[in-house]
């Protein structure tokens, strides 16, 4: 899709708000974060989970949501997770914000390895974490999302 078409799409006056997800779907998404990373679901009590076709957004919980939905918006809240195939992939933005609460599947990289991963996007790597999405950290700072597959590490850093 060309840039101009994307631009027009964004300005579509019929664009609709992402929709609040039903309770079961919310529990499924937050349950995934808790199971995979140990981030407690209660962390997100103050937030509504909204969704578009493939994206989940975190938006502050408010009794005024119905009023606000009268506004024609560009974005609402923080892009939280994306559906990639059948899997949920947390965004780097969300992990930078909430990743400090994780207790597992956190990968600590040294500076050289991080630089190489950012440059090459995919590097050979063996680690003691389960295959799947991981939180990439370096020197005490959270960088964002990676994918660990047997023998390799893939960067989803912006």
């Amino acid at each position, binding site marked *: 899709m060309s840039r101009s078409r994307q631009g027009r799409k964004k300005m579509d006056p019929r664009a609709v708000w992402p929709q609040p997800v039903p309770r079961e779907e919310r529990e499924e998404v937050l349950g995934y974060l808790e199971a995979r990373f140990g981030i407690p679901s209660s962390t997100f009590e*103050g937030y509504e989970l909204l969704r578009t076709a493939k994206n989940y957004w975190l938006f502050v919980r408010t009794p*005024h949501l119905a009023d606000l939905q009268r*506004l024609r918006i*560009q974005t609402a*809240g923080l892009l939280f997770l994306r559906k990639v195939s059948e899997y949920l992939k947390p965004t780097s933005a969300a992990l930078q914000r909430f990743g400090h609460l994780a207790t597992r599947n956190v990968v600590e990289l040294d500076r050289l390895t991080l630089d190489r991963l950012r440059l090459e996007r995919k590097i050979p790597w063996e680690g003691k974490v389960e295959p799947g999405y991981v939180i990439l950290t370096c020197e005490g700072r959270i960088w964002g999302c990676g994918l660990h597959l047997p023998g390799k590490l893939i960067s989803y850093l912006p």
Partner: protein
Amino acid sequence: MERSLERAEDYFARYREIIPDYEGFLESLSEPLPLYFRLNTLKTKDPEPVISGLTRQGFRVEKTEIPWFFRVEPREASLGNTEEYYLGLIYPMTLSSSLPVYALDPQPGELILDLCAAPGSKTTQIAQWTEDRAVIAANDRRLDRITALVANLRRLGVACALTTVYRGEMYPLEVSFDKVLVDAPCSGEGRYRKGYEGELLYQKEGRTNLSGIQKGLLVRAFDLLKPGGILVYSTCTINPEENEAVVDYLLRKRQAELLDWEAPLPARPGLTEWEGRPFHPELVKAKRFFPHEIQAVGFFVAKLRRRI
């Protein structure tokens, strides 16, 4: 350069009577603007690793009188290429740019409209001040500026803001807000420094009816308030036509009252007269912040309430 010096002094001469220590002001124009950043407490409340990280990259960082704001030298350098910026740990913004949010005094749960929000320094500050729990509609009329705003919201990890692209003076009236911030487009005289900033100052003047735009924005902002709601109007210019005259216009058109507020930097009262024209006497409650008195961009901030 010589020509630019003459022009700056000619230009500001009309403010000689309203700028305290006018000679000191003129002297300050030869210095580049001091550089500051805000620590993004949504991501970290410990400034030490950020300070030591920036120090390793050759910056000198020191605390300021405003919580979470830090002064940086060399001031000509850019923080935008640092890892601390990339990871959303810092937001470079001038110290005085924090003042409108002080006046707004945002609280968790409040519905707040930031009418001229891009690139998002004040939207993200409101989010930070309320621990991501105010509900902020961040608006800008230009889509390219919204892109920068959205990027900053994502970089800082803000989840309490939505973004809209409306012309401010025509913002839809369907939603009423507890508080509205109008950090208006202005001639930017408060950020002018010889050879460094504000080169567009002279060109802008006279070409755009800034005062007219500002009045339109302020009246619409008022109409978007709930009864009793709070309105903050700010600019980074010295020009009374863009400051007191705009607020005076609102006071004549609507049931608004000026409020006093406590500022964390030294302020001067708003003007009640300019070039022989009187303004509403309550305008003494507005605050003027002069660049050479605060070592930052000069600001004007007025806090108003919609009468019930």
